[in-house]
């Protein structure tokens, strides 16, 4: 297995409340890893340690290592903005920035000064809107406010916005939970298409979605990783009693 992210002895607390306990996992490159488990088990917390979002919470404390390509992103000499550029996050609900559709996609490229001229930006905006499967729907209204899009379109716009800064990892924090079934399908389809180019980590609480997407599965319970491994093995032949119970819908 080609490991992209490796987590060593990771612990996290909210104040005095432990949220993650001794996490040791590996995330394979260019596959979809699904983190599943009942609500409150720490899935989202774990996900947010990968792009250093956890430290946005007042009072959150983290120990241990998160190695991306073998480098610990929590070392003091690592630039947090670069971490977040290379490890993008698709949030639970789409938050279009208060600007046009075009500017939403160009925003990140602008901030990182990734293109030399206007034509470069224009071509990239088109490219990433196509990649997110939104181009056909918005090409005639690129300069209208992004808030006018439907929620499903907004989520694809957020995907395009994240992809535009050329990340190597896509994190998804229940990225379809606010969407209608058709829009959810759209996003799932995109994630499956993109996985050959991006390492993808998705948090979900729907087992069916996990089964549709996962190449690799991490099952969490009460802040601990109970079981992790290739999806085929975990779904058909779980090694742990808890995993089996969860898969059978007992909790």
């Amino acid at each position, binding site marked *: 297995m080609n490991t992209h992210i490796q987590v060593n002895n990771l612990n996290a607390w909210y104040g005095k409340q432990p949220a993650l306990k001794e996490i040791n996992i590996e995330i394979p490159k260019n596959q979809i890893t699904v983190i599943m488990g009942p609500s409150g088990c720490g899935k989202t917390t774990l996900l947010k340690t990968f792009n250093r979002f956890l430290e946005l919470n007042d009072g959150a404390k983290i120990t241990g290592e998160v190695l991306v390509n073998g480098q610990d992103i929590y070392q003091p000499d690592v630039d947090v903005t670069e971490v*977040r550029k290379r490890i993008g*996050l698709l949030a639970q609900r789409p938050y279009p920035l208060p600007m046009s559709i075009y500017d939403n996609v160009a*925003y990140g490229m602008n901030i*990182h000064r990734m293109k030399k001229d206007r034509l470069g930006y224009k071509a990239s905006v088109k490219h990433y809107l196509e990649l997110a499967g939104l181009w056909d729907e918005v090409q005639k209204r690129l300069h209208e406010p992004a808030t006018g899009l439907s929620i499903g379109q907004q989520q694809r716009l957020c995907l395009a*916005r994240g992809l535009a*800064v050329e990340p190597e990892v896509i994190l998804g924090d229940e990225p379809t939970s606010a969407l209608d079934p058709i829009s959810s399908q759209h996003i799932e389809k995109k994630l499956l298409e993109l996985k050959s180019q991006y390492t993808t980590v998705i948090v979900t609480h729907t087992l069916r979605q996990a089964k549709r997407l996962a190449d690799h599965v991490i099952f969490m319970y009460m802040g601990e990783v109970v079981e992790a491994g290739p999806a085929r093995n975990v779904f058909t032949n779980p090694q742990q009693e808890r995993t089996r119970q969860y898969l059978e819908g007992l909790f």
Partner: protein
Amino acid sequence: MEKPIPLFSPITPAAVSRRRADSFANRAFFMITLIPVALIFIITIALFLRFLPILREHSLWELVSGVTWKPNKGEFGFLPFIAGTFWVTALGVALAVPPCILTALYLSEYARATTRTLMKPLLDLLAAIPSVVYGVWGMLAIVPLVGDVLRPILNRYLGFIPLFASNQPTGFSILAGAIVLAVMIAPFIIAITYEVLATIPQGLRQASLGIGATQWQTIRYVVLPQVLPAIIAGIVLGASRALGETLAVLMVVGNIPQMPNSIFDAGYPLPALIANNYGEMMSIPLYDAALLGAAFILLVIILFFNILSTIVLQRVLK
């Protein structure tokens, strides 16, 4: 046999009287709520009626554009007072706004929760200091600072600009009034800006931070554009408080009815005019009408700014 379904019992006299008491209370509370609303209208109308006698002799335009204030000679020009009001207010707001917005941004975007819970009440406390205390502080600290430090320095280096030229020896001036005013309205502007920033969902900030924007870029391109109208409304609300602030300003502003040309000139704002003179020398013809006219003009200006900013703010904060 099936049990009969019970009907609702017919209304009893006790229920009728309860219902009556309820509707009476409803109406009574409504009337009580109306009193403050009605007061605004009554005061405005009463001031206007008392203003009328002078309007029969001088046109409104003549009054608000007149620059001479000599009640003994029947000359009632309001312009120096209107100008004084706007000078002090504009300068006060200009001094207050930049640090206030930065403070609110710091508290809302950068500060840790513990800092915030400590600092926020302290800032709100500024609003609780009585006006007269600010006035005394202004006389003891700000007037000497303006007169002995700022005036000589600015006059020397920027004196070629009329705004900073000075030909009067003391610190009792527009600038002193504006500084005191700036400190007085600061807690309002900070509080409103902070409230408005708090309406921005965390997810929106994270959308920007999540693709590697810095905190400042997020503020600059995502947070501020979203709240700018509301912040401006908050500033206008602060300004309308400033327009009406009387005591602290009149203690430091010099109170000379002249058209100010420089921030070091003495000014004479409308509220100071009314507070200093109403009740004295009332035997002068039309003096009463002139002062109450000044009060009417002040009230109309403030109501206008207040209503405008409230409408904008309610839209944002709802």
